[in-house]
C-alpha cells in the first residue's frame, strides 16, 4: 500500500466519522467538532492526491495546497462564528443543545 493511498483512506474514514458526528450528535460542540473532522478528512484526501501528482522534477502539485489552506481559513472562521453563537446559547439556556434535542 502506497503512502498516498493510506492517507487517502484515512481521509475517507475521517469524512465518514465527521459526517456522522456533525449530523447525529446532540451536544453542539460535538457537532461542531464533527464538522471540523469532516473538513480534515476532505483536506487530507486532497493533500494525498498532491503527493501522487508529482511533475518531472519531483515537485508535488501546488494547487491542492493552495486550496486546502483557503479551505482551512474558511473552516476556522466558520468555527469561530459557531463557537460565539454556542456561547450565547449556553449563556441563555444553560445547555449546549438545540431545543429539539433536549430530554424532558
Amino acid at each position, binding site marked *: 500500500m502506497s503512502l498516498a493511498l493510506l492517507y487517502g483512506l484515512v481521509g475517507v474514514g475521517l469524512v465518514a466519522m465527521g459526517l456522522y458526528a*456533525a449530523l447525529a450528535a446532540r451536544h*453542539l460542540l460535538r457537532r461542531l467538532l464533527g464538522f471540523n473532522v469532516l473538513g480534515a478528512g476532505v483536506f487530507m484526501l486532497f493533500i494525498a492526491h498532491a503527493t501522487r501528482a508529482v511533475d518531472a522534477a519531483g515537485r508535488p502539485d501546488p494547487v491542492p495546497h493552495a486550496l486546502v489552506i483557503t479551505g482551512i481559513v474558511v473552516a476556522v472562521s466558520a468555527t469561530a462564528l459557531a463557537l460565539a453563537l454556542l456561547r450565547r446559547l449556553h449563556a441563555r439556556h444553560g445547555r449546549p443543545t438545540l431545543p429539539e434535542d433536549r430530554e424532558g
Partner: protein
Amino acid sequence: MNAESTLLALLVLPLLAAVLSLLVGRRWLGWLGMLVALLLVVLAVRFALQVAAGGAVAVAIGGWAPPLGIALRADGLSAFMLLVQSVVGLGVHAYALAYFAPARRAFWAAGWLLWGACHALYLSGDVFNLYVTLELVGLGAVALVVLGGSGTVAAALRYLLLALVGSMLYLLGVVVLYLEHGNLDLQALGTLVQPGLASSVAAATMTLGLLLKAAVFPLHVWLPPAHAAAPAPVSALLSALVVKAALYLVVRLWTGLFGELPAAGVALSLLAGLGAAALFWGGVQALLQTRLKPMIAYSTVAQIGLLALVLPLLQGGAVAWNGLMLLVAAHALAKSALFLCAGVVQRQYGHDRIAGLGGVGMQLPLTATAYFVAAVSLVGLPPTMGFFGKYLLLEAAIAQSRPMIAAALVLGSLLTAAYLLRPLALGFTEAATRQAPRTAGLGLQLPGLLLALAALLALLVGAGTPLWRLLAVGMPA
C-alpha cells in the same frame, strides 16, 4: 465603461460598502447603503444590457488565466440573477432604513457582505471559488439571523451547522472532480467529465450539499425556524435570495457540468419528486401555521419545491428555461414583499397572529395591497410575473409530455392560494378587533408595495423579447 469593468464593479462595490459600513459614522450608514444599492441596480441593468448585446463576459483577474487563475464569468443566467439580487436588495435595504432606526451597524455590514458574496457566487466560473462564495453567503446569512436577539440563537446555530455540512459535502465533490480531472474551471470541466464512478460521486455529494443549503424537502428542517425568527428585512433577504443562490448552483451543475451524464435524467426526475413532496408538505404546513411569518417561511419550502419540480423540463429547451427564470424572479419579488408586509404588521400590532388580523385592510391599506399583489403573483394569476412563468412551464410540461409535473404545478398553485389568501380574507372581511396603537410610516410600507408592483411593471419594461435575448446568452443547448 465596458462589460468587464461593469463586472468588476458589481463584484467590488458591495464588499467595499461592507468595509465602509464598519468605518463610517452611524448616521451615514443608511445613506451610504442607499447610494451603493441604487448604484448597483444601475450597474446590474447596464450589465444585463451589455451581456444581451455582446454575449458572455469573462475576466481573468490579474491576467492569470485558468487553470492557475480564478475565472470570473457571466452569461445571461448570471446577469439575470444579479438583476434580481439588486432589485430585491434595494427594496429590502430601503425598508431596513426605516425598520432599524436608529441604524444598526451589524445589519449594514453583514447585509453588504451577504450581497457581495451573492454577486461573487453568480460571477464565479470556478468550482472551488464557488465553494468559498457559498460559505460566505452562509456566514453572512447566519450573522443576519442573530440580529433578531438572543431568542434566535438556536435557529441560527442549527442553520449554521447544517449549512457548514452542506458546503463541506459540496467541497468533497469538488475534491473528487479535481482528483479525476486536475481542473477546477467550470467550463473546462464540462468538456472533461465522463460517465463513471468519480463523476457519480462528485455529482451526488455536490448536489446533496446544495440541496441541504437550498432547503429542498426533506432537508428543509432548518429553514422555517431561522426564517421566521429573523427580523423581517433579514427574512426577506434569506427567503428571496439566499436559498436561490444554492438552487442557482444546482441548475448550473445539472445543465452544464453533469448535464451530459446518462444518469442526469434520473437525477433530475428524483429532484422533481422531492420538489413535488416539498410543494405539498410545505403547503400543508403553511396552512396549519397560526402566525404570519412562519406561514410565509413554510411557503418558501413549498416554492423552492416548485422550482425543483420543474428542473427536468430544462432538458427540453428554451421555453422551460425562460419560464423557470421568470418564476425565480417572481418568487424573489413576491416573497420579499410578503416578509416586509409581515414586518409592518408585527410593528403595528405587536404580534403576527393570523387570527388577529381582522381589519388590516382598513388600517394598513398600502401593506394589505402589497400583500395582495405579492400573493396573486405567487399563486400565479394573470397578469403577474408568476403567471407568465407558470404558463411557460405548463406549456413546456405539456409539450414534453410530463403530465405529472403539469398536475403538481397546478395543484401546488391551488394550495398556495389556499394559505396565502386566508390572512387576506380575514383582513378585509372581519372587523378590527381593536384600534391599531401605532401607525406605520410610509418608509416602512412603501418598499414592500414597490417590490410587489415590480413583478407587474417588470413585464412592461423588460420581459418578453429583451429578456429572452438576455437569457439566451449561454443557455445550455
